[in-house]
């Protein structure tokens, strides 16, 4: 039985009822097919109603669904001959980020992404897809390698965030992400980034500076996890739903803001319902993006990337001074002697 989400409970209940009626028909020989048909129609209508108008919080739950395709599922679905490459050459191999080389429709690619596990054991090995600095450094090593050999880069983002641990801080989590941002800005090969599930803050952005940003229909991308925002705003982490609603974190929001270039449609009910179909959709979209980017010379890529990020921001610029007359700049009179 598939893992069901809380808001899918009414569907689950109806489906159980249908099972019960079917069993009753078999056991007692009483024909309940009419009742079954009615209930099945009801399930269909209800499912459509639920999935058509998913709230941001429901999308967050779908994005975190344990049965969604993982980065390695996408990579193996996109390429026939993926070779995984390990290690940052400095400290260790971080299993929360995977990467390597493969060929998609004849195009050699470097593919990198955060990797979640399927079960508890695998998740402990993958650290729930939350990378340490060495993960970001491995990713950078592979990206520089891609640049050297003129291979496009595809990144898959599905992480709650960079791991907030003591060792991660010691080894420079902030520096590792910062380094990736500035290096990715300057790479002279195309970079296509796909947010497949959770786009958790700086930990997601550390693999997310590129020429195209694609996002799955029910994925989210946020400056802070909804639960953490709720903890800060209302001192209550259980109000994640309220925060998710306030923070405009869905693919649809980001598309409207001009930050996401394309939304990739998910199978009905979410990618976890039909991983094979989802992988095909992702492959087609990545291929489309790469074909578009093929028209750009490698030396123009950083300049276009610059323009892409340059225009992000919402502010106003007034001609007149901001402060009313008589309201001097604070501390303008403070008097410190140094020289």
């Amino acid at each position: 039985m598939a893992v069901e989400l809380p808001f899918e409970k009414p569907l689950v209940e109806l489906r159980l009822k249908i099972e019960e009626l079917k069993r009753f028909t078999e056991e007692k020989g009483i024909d309940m097919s009419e009742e079954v048909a009615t209930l099945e129609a009801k399930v269909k209508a209800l499912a459509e109603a639920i999935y058509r108008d998913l709230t941001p919080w429901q999308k967050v739950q779908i994005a975190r669904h344990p049965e969604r395709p993982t980065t390695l599922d996408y990579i193996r679905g996109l390429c026939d001959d993926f070779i995984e490459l390990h290690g940052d050459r400095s400290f260790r191999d971080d299993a929360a980020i995977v990467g390597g080389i493969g060929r998609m429709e004849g195009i050699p690619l470097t593919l990198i992404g955060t990797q979640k596990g399927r079960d508890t054991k695998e998740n402990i090995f993958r650290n729930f897809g939350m990378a340490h600095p060495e993960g970001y450094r491995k990713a950078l090593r592979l990206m520089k390698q891609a640049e050297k050999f003129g291979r496009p880069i595809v990144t898959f983002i599905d992480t709650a965030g960079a791991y907030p641990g003591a060792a991660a801080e010691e080894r420079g989590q902030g520096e590792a992400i910062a380094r990736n941002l500035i290096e990715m800005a300057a790479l002279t090969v195309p970079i296509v980034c796909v947010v497949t599930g959770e786009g958790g803050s700086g930990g997601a952005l550390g693999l997310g500076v590129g020429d195209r940003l694609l996002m799955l229909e029910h994925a989210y991308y946020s400056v802070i996890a909804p639960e953490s925002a709720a903890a800060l705003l209302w001192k209550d982490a259980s109000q994640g739903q309220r925060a998710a609603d306030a923070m405009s974190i869905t693919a649809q929001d980001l598309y409207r803001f001009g930050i996401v270039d394309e939304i990739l449609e998910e199978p009905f009910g979410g990618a976890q319902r039909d991983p094979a179909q989802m992988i095909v959709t992702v492959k087609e979209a990545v291929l489309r993006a790469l074909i578009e980017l093929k028209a750009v010379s490698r030396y123009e890529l950083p300049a276009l990337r610059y323009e892409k990020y340059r225009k992000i921001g919402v502010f106003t610029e007034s001609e007149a001074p901001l402060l009313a007359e008589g309201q001097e700049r604070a501390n303008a009179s403070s008097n410190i002697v140094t020289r």
Partner: protein
Amino acid sequence: MEKCKQCGQILFAKELDKQVKTCPHCGYHFTLTAQERIQVTLDEGSFEEFDANLVSGDPLHFPDYSARVERSRQATGLADAVVTGAGTIGGFPVVVGVMDSRFIMGSMGSVVGEKLTRAIEQAIERSVPVIIFSVSGGARMQEGIFSLMQMAKISTALARLAQSRLLYISVLTHPTTGGVTASFAMQGDVNISEPGATIGFAGRRIIEQTIRQKLPDEFQTAEFVLEHGMIDQVVHRKDLRALLATLLSLHAKGGEWSGR
């Protein structure tokens, strides 16, 4: 008169100013406003401010955000959490960005991103180095994804500065955390901090909850990140200006070694 936040000694304003707002008894570094930082760092009268009239929008219509910005503006006289401009240090021209923690904890939203990006573009235009003084709680949650994307925007600008072979010095002051640490604050050719400054990515409380352990006091201090190789020097504020001037002189135009 002020009481030292660390050792509790009573300090007179004159004494405090002479020490560039550090405690003469225990070395505690008081937080500087952007205005004060500019005053103690740049040559007198050399500062020319850029883009003073940028005000943040409210793209998410986030509860209470516009009002909070307005309150911060009224309270600080600042348009947002960074002041940018050009000036000289020891006669060497430089473009500076100076954050101010009084404005919504020095958080980075669209205005901080835009002003720093424009400042970096000005530096490229004028062919001068950039110094950014960070003091920030990180990305500004109320601007959501726009604030996260400022990390990428400033980074692409600094990548362009690097392509122009212009020096970038990052001065991380207390506290520099979150998305600011994970972007421009850690991207300097030279990263410098002041004694005792908190520098980190994840918040201490979140880490303690994750690892279910108390962290030692020195965790995420300037000295700690120096020891772990993330910054180049921890410098007392009294010596900072001279160090910056020397670094600028070592990178001055026309002074490069040109072998055949």
